[in-house]
């Protein structure tokens, strides 16, 4: 009886109102498609993909309320009604004062970095994210990782692997001086650590420390609601709080934020920059016109702002997050039952499979994670993403970086796939795992100069004669 209740506990608080038909393919069709794509899942045509776990960014399905609001979107260039709804939602749910819409999260990062960073500044952060770090560097800043060491160990089961190590921060302040640190880039639910949360306790301590030195905290809040869910489940004193309250409390300890609304906020496009500082706002308002669009649309259609306003509200519903993370955990547990090596604890937005442990017979320069993404696709049409040696690129000597983590990310879009889809994924992973010894690695036959993971091409290593 208890078991049945557990299983029911994450049943989705919605039903399907519109569906998108999928093409069913067979193994030989998929073999042909992956060969054409050079064994790179980024280069597959989406119509050849059955279950698309490439990313949870912008791949969500919207609710009927969001679609309804889509129709009432106000497309006026200036002073759009939809902007005021959008602004109001962010102010009331997150608590920030001044809001600038942008076409997506990286655009907010671009504007913020340009305003706050001077050449030679240090930007401490709880693990880098590709675009965030890039915009900091382009503005003349240097990123410095201050996440706790546990975050870099895939099997360490610490519950808050997104936490900041205050000693690392203190060392930076001592070495460079607080005046060289314009802000701390604080991510909630750290993506590259595997969707791992930061604790409220840690955020409070960080706020206390930074207040002392007058350093801003800028919140990379794209998955804040997922982080809040983990705080509610894991942190003492928060079991009876609503996700809505926890999110607002997190934001209250920070001075501003950048957000890609394509994750938590349940839309397909959009983002914003938020700040409590009038001067930053005024400067951002001038810059946004140059890069994005007038400050009451920021490069978004009116309807997109409507959809974000509603998406934010829906994302803070306890039942929604319970189902969202429940689904990710369901897939993770299923994979664990099949003995598939995954990063633990199970994160908020996806399952990260350890390709080194999965394919121990492959050397890292035979691209085990890339190989696994291709094998998953061939087996079942599931598209996943490599986060290992291919993504890490080459150093200045021209050698591969050989990162410690060689992972395959199974990212789950919100409200899109069903439990049956999760079962298919896990069963497919199990099937590939069962024949893992027969899997041959890859060689890279085309390598672009920059961001090679997007467009590199591979071939299977020939079997020994």
């Amino acid at each position: 009886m208890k078991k049945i209740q557990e299983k029911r506990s994450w049943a989705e608080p919605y039903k399907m109102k519109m569906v998108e038909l999928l093409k069913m393919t067979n193994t030989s069709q998929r073999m042909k498609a992956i060969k054409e794509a050079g064994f790179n899942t980024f280069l597959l045509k989406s119509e050849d993909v059955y279950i698309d776990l490439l990313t949870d960014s912008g791949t969500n399905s919207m609710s009927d309320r969001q679609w309804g609001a889509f129709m009432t979107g106000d497309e006026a260039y200036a002073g759009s009604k939809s902007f005021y709804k959008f602004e109001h939602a962010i102010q009331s749910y997150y608590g920030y004062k001044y809001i600038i819409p942008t076409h997506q999260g990286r655009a907010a990062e671009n504007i913020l970095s340009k305003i706050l960073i001077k050449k030679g500044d240090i930007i401490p952060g709880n693990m880098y994210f590709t675009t965030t770090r890039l915009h900091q560097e382009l503005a003349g800043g240097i990123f410095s990782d201050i996440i706790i060491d546990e975050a870099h160990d895939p099997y360490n089961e610490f519950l808050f692997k997104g936490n900041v190590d205050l000693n690392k921060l203190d060392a930076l302040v001592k070495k460079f001086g607080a005046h060289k640190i314009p802000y701390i880039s604080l991510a909630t639910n750290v993506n590259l650590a595997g969707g791992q949360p930061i604790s409220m306790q840690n955020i409070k301590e960080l706020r206390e420390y930074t207040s002392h030195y007058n350093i801003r905290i800028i919140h990379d809040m794209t998955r804040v609601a997922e982080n809040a869910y983990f705080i509610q489940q894991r942190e003492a004193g928060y079991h009876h709080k609503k996700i809505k309250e926890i999110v607002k409390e997190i934001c209250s300890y920070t001075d501003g934020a950048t957000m890609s609304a394509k994750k938590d906020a349940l839309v397909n496009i959009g983002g914003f920059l938020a700040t409590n500082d009038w001067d930053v706002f005024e400067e951002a308002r001038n810059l946004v016109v140059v890069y994005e669009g007038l400050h009451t649309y920021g490069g978004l259609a009116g309807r997109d702002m409507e959809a974000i306003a509603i998406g934010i509200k829906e994302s803070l519903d306890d039942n929604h997050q319970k189902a969202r993370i429940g689904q990710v955990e369901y897939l993770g547990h299923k994979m664990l039952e099949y003995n598939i090596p995954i990063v633990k604890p199970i994160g908020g937005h996806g399952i990260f499979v350890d390709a080194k442990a999965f394919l121990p017979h492959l050397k890292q320069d035979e691209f085990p994670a890339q190989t696994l993404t291709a094998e998953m696709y061939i087996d079942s049409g599931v598209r996943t993403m490599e986060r290992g040696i291919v993504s890490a690129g080459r150093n200045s000597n021209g050698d591969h970086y050989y990162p410690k983590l060689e992972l395959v990310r199974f990212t789950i879009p919100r409200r899109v796939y069903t439990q049956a889809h999760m079962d298919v994924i896990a069963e497919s992973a199990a099937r590939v795992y069962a024949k893992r010894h027969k899997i041959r690695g890859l060689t890279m036959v085309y390598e672009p100069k920059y961001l090679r993971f997007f467009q590199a091409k591979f071939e299977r290593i020939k079997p020994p004669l």
Partner: protein
Amino acid sequence: MKKERTLTEPFKIKIVEPLRITTESYRQQQLVQAGYNPFLLHSEDVFIDLLTDSGTGAMSDHQWAGMLIGDESYAGSKSFFHLQRIVQELSGMPFVLPTHQGRAAERILYSIIGGKGKVFISNTHFDTTRANIEYTGAIAIDIVYPQAKDPEIDLPFKGNIDLDQLLELIEEYRPQNIAAIIMTITNNSVGGQPVSMSNIKAVRNICNQYSIMLVIDGCRIAENAYFIKHREIEYQDKSYYEIAKEILGLADAFIMSAKKDGMVNIGGLLTVKNEELAILCKNLLIISEGFTTYGGLSGRDMEAIAIGLTEVFDPDYLHYRIKSIAYLGEHLKAKGIPVVWPIGGHAVYVDAKKLYPHIPINEFPGQALVCNLYRKGGIRCVEVGSVMFGTYDEQMNLIPAQNELVRLAIPRRVYTQSHIDYVLDIFDEILEDKEQSKGFKIVYEPPVLRHFTALFDHIQ
């Protein structure tokens, strides 16, 4: 005026957006609160919004259907391939990069080919184009024919680039320093005036002679094609699509804000011929916009652009579009309102200096007209004069713009003829008490692009 047959609209209304009717005293209050700057009005207080034709059009039922089948995959989206196919066919260029809107496409291309010491020459750079070019450290030079600056001269292609001056400038700055010649079609800043095919061909020849890149900034390319067909005799038998294709065949790169002739509310495009340049552009695209198969747009937005780009070349649509702008312009002229002549493709420009000769330039006659139109009729439009383009000398005296215009931009497929007749009626009221109109002073202005957020007050 000769009685013309009523303009036939090649569509009917499928979805409406209700409007709020407000009173003059309510609107006066709103104006005061907005610091007499219509950009700061809330759109729900506006009855007829002629602020811009950019992103304000109504999509068709086909486009909305496309919105529902938009493929939101991050990589390899079906909607991208659809858009790519349509744009490759139109432009004849192999590399198609979607962007969130036109200014992002400009920023990507111009930051690669621009930089300190480089010079861009154009028939007229649009304000965001100029901002993007100058940001890289390059110089932007506008050269229209001198007659184009006179609002009254009736010429078929007032948007053309001055070819003699172009050659002089190339010699002066040396060909190797010219980053590109940009042809903006239609030429928005001089009144939505078209550019002739022969002018573009002549520029192409000059580009070949000196090995200079030719960029078409073509957010209103279909409207421009209309004027070419009807004003350049050798094109009278070609379709609008064929004309647009021929224009783009002359270019090395094509930039488009799809919010105009793409018939959508959001989106832009960059297409280039050269593969090496395409690779550089794609790298920047990923950094600032999004992955190459979505570029900062949702899948459904790419679907809508692909469909919009086929609808816009429909001859019945373009006829309706150009004629409906002319309807407003010709009737205003008949009333004695001074308008920029001939009427352009997307807007009617009223000459406020001539309408309000008693208001000195440094009291912004254009701003006065903009505020009067809102107060009397709830009509929102934009000043294109010394508020937008004026600068200051060292003593902080205003250096005025070329002209003091007010732009009435018509969104595509949004307003009916009775809305336009209503606008005409409001102009009767404007004429009645034009002598009582008062000018403004600026009480707050930001350092750049002040027209968006400046605050005004009446001079006591």
